[in-house]
C-alpha cells in the first residue's frame, strides 16, 4: 500500500471563542477524491487553509504527501496545489502571463515556465484565450485558469475550495470532467462543496463536517444506506394533513414527520414498492387523494438532515464564512 496523500490528525483551530475546527482527523488515499461536505461556517475552508499551510492549527498535525504542514510548510508547498473560493488570478495579466508567473514562483527555469504555461492552458482548453487579459474572461474561464494555476507545479495533492460555487451548469460539468481527468492521472484531490450532488458525483469518500467536527464519513452509498433504504414522500393538501398522518404513522411504526416547506410527509420504505402499494391502498380507503407520491433512494440532503438536524442551506451560498470573518476581525498569531 502506498502512504496516504493527506492525513489530518486531531486538528483544532479557534478564532476567538469560535471553534472553527474541533479535532478533525481524516485520511485520504493517493489517487482518490475526498469530498468535504458541509454548510457555510462548518469549518471546511479552515481545514483546507490549515492543510495548505495558510493557517497554523492550535493543535494537531497535518501531513500532505507525507510532509508535515506545520513543521515544514515550505516543503509541503512544493507538493500541493490550491484553488480557493475566489478565482485568485490577476485581471490585468493574460491567462498565459498568470501561469508563467506561477511557474517562475515555483522556480522553474524561465523556458520551462513558458512551456508549462502552454501545456496547462491546453489542458484546461484555454489556449485560444491565453493571450487575452483575464479581465475579458467569463466566470467559468477564470475558475478554470485558477485551477490551472494550481496545476503548474505538478502537485501530487490538489485542494479545491468550492470549485464550482457560482458557476453555470455547463461550466460546472466542464470543471467536474477536468477534476476527474486529473485524478485519473494520479493526482489526489480534496474538495469542499455545499452541493450534495457534487460530492455524490465526484468523491470516492465523503466527509460530512458540521460545527468543526467530522460527523460522519463514507462513500455516497454508505451514507445513503445509513438511512435504511428507500423512502416515500407523500404530498397532501393541508386539509388532508390530519387524516393522513395516522395512516402513514401506522405503516412506518413511528410518527410520520411533516415537512412544512413541501407540504409532505416522509416515511421509510423498507419493502420498497410493496410499502408504496400499501400507502396507496390505505390512502384510497380513507379517501385521501395525494398531490404527489414518490418512492426514491434517500438523497444526500436527507442524509445531511438526519445527521445534523438541520438542512444544508445550499440555496443561500455565502462566500464569507463566519470562521473567516472571525479571522479578519481578530487576526491571529
Amino acid at each position, binding site marked *: 500500500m502506498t502512504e496516504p496523500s493527506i492525513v489530518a490528525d486531531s486538528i483544532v483551530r479557534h478564532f476567538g471563542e469560535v471553534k472553527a475546527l474541533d479535532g478533525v482527523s481524516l485520511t485520504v488515499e493517493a489517487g482518490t477524491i475526498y469530498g468535504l461536505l458541509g454548510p457555510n461556517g462548518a469549518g471546511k475552508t479552515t481545514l483546507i*487553509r490549515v492543510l*495548505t*499551510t*495558510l*493557517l*497554523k492549527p492550535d493543535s494537531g498535525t497535518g501531513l500532505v504527501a507525507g510532509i508535515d504542514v506545520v513543521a515544514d*510548510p*515550505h516543503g509541503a*508547498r*512544493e507538493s*500541493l*496545489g*490550491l484553488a*480557493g*473560493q*475566489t*478565482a*485568485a*488570478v*490577476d485581471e*490585468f*495579466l493574460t491567462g498565459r*502571463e498568470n501561469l508563467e*508567473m*506561477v511557474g*517562475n*514562483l*515555483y*522556480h522553474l527555469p524561465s523556458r520551462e515556465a513558458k512551456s508549462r504555461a502552454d501545456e496547462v492552458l491546453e489542458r484546461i482548453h484555454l489556449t485560444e484565450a491565453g493571450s487575452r*487579459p483575464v479581465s475579458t474572461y467569463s466566470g467559468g474561464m477564470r475558475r478554470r485558469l*485558477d485551477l490551472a*494555476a*494550481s496545476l503548474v*507545479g505538478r502537485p501530487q495533492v490538489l485542494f479545491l475550495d468550492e470549485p464550482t460555487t457560482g458557476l453555470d451548469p455547463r461550466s460546472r460539468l466542464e470543471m467536474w470532467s477536468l477534476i476527474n481527468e486529473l485524478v485519473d492521472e494520479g493526482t489526489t484531490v480534496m474538495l469542499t462543496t455545499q452541493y450534495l450532488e457534487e460530492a455524490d458525483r465526484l468523491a470516492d469518500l465523503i466527509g460530512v463536517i458540521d460545527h468543526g467536527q467530522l460527523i460522519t464519513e463514507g462513500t455516497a452509498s454508505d451514507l445513503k444506506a445509513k438511512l435504511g433504504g428507500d423512502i416515500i414522500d407523500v404530498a397532501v393538501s393541508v386539509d388532508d394533513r390530519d387524516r393522513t398522518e395516522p395512516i402513514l404513522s401506522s405503516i412506518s411504526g413511528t410518527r410520520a414527520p411533516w415537512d412544512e416547506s413541501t407540504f409532505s410527509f416522509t416515511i421509510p420504505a423498507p419493502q420498497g414498492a410493496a410499502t408504496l402499494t400499501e400507502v396507496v391502498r390505505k390512502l384510497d380507503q380513507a379517501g385521501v387523494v395525494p398531490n404527489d407520491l414518490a418512492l426514491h433512494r434517500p438523497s444526500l440532503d436527507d442524509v445531511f438532515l438526519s445527521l445534523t438536524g438541520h438542512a444544508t442551506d445550499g440555496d443561500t451560498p455565502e462566500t464569507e464564512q463566519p470562521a473567516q470573518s472571525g*479571522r*479578519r476581525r481578530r*487576526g*491571529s*498569531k
Partner: protein
Amino acid sequence: MTMRTRSISRDVTHQVRDTIVMVKRNLLRIVRLPQLLFFSSVQPIIFLLLFTYVFGGAITRGTDIAYIDFLLPGVLVQTAVFGSTQTAIGLTEDLAAGVIDRFRSLPMARSAVLTGRTTADLIRNVVVTIIMLAVGSIIGFRIGGTALEALLGVAVALLFGFSLSWAMAALGLWVKNAETAQTASFVLIFPLVFASSIFVPTASMPSWLQGFAANQPVSVIASTVRALMGGLPVGSLVLQSALWIAAILAVFFPLGVRIYRRAVGS
C-alpha cells in the same frame, strides 16, 4: 557548514528571483492601466502649475531663488509621499482578491510579495519624476549646481518615497481595506506635506507650528532635495535625510513583514 552556506545562498537567489517576478507583475499592472500612471503624473503637474502661477506670486520667500526652483524639488518629494499610498492600496486589493493566498500557497519567498510591491512603486515613481522634471524644465526650472548633485537630490526624494512605501504597506495590511487605507494614509500625509517647506518657507508659518514644520521629515527631505538641486549650501542635510530614511525603514520594514504575516493568518 558548506551545506548551510549553500542553502542560504539558494534562499537569497530565490528571494531575489521571486522579488523580480513580483516587480514584473506589479509593473505590468501599471502598463496595462495607463490611466493610473497618467493621473498619478497629472496630479503633481497640476500642483506644480497651480502653485507656480496661482500662489507663486503671492508667496513671499526668504530665499532669492526663483519660485519654480524652490517649488519643483518640493513637489518631487510630495509626489513620492503621495505615491507611497499606492503601495497600501495595491496590497489591500491583492488581499481582497485572494491573490495573496495563492502566493502564500506557493513555495516562494514570503517577503517577495512586499519587496516586489514597494520596488515596483519605486520604479513607477522614477517614471513620474522624469515626467515632472520634463514639465518643470518647460516652465523654467533650472538646476543650480552640478548634474551629480541634482541626481543625488532626486535619489533622496525617491528613497524617501520608498521608505514611506514600507510604512504604507504596514498601514494597508493593518486596515485591510483599500478605501480605509486611502483615507487613513491621507490623514497622516496631508499635515506632513502641507505643514512643511514643500510649498512655502516654514518661516512664514505661526511660531507654534514652525518647530514642527521645520524639523519634520518631509521638510528635512524637501530642504535637502532643494539644496542639492539648487546648488545651495547642504550642510548636514544629506546626513539628516539618510537618517530619517534609515529610521523609517528600520521601523516599518520589520513591522510590515510582521503585519503581513498576521494579516494572512500564519
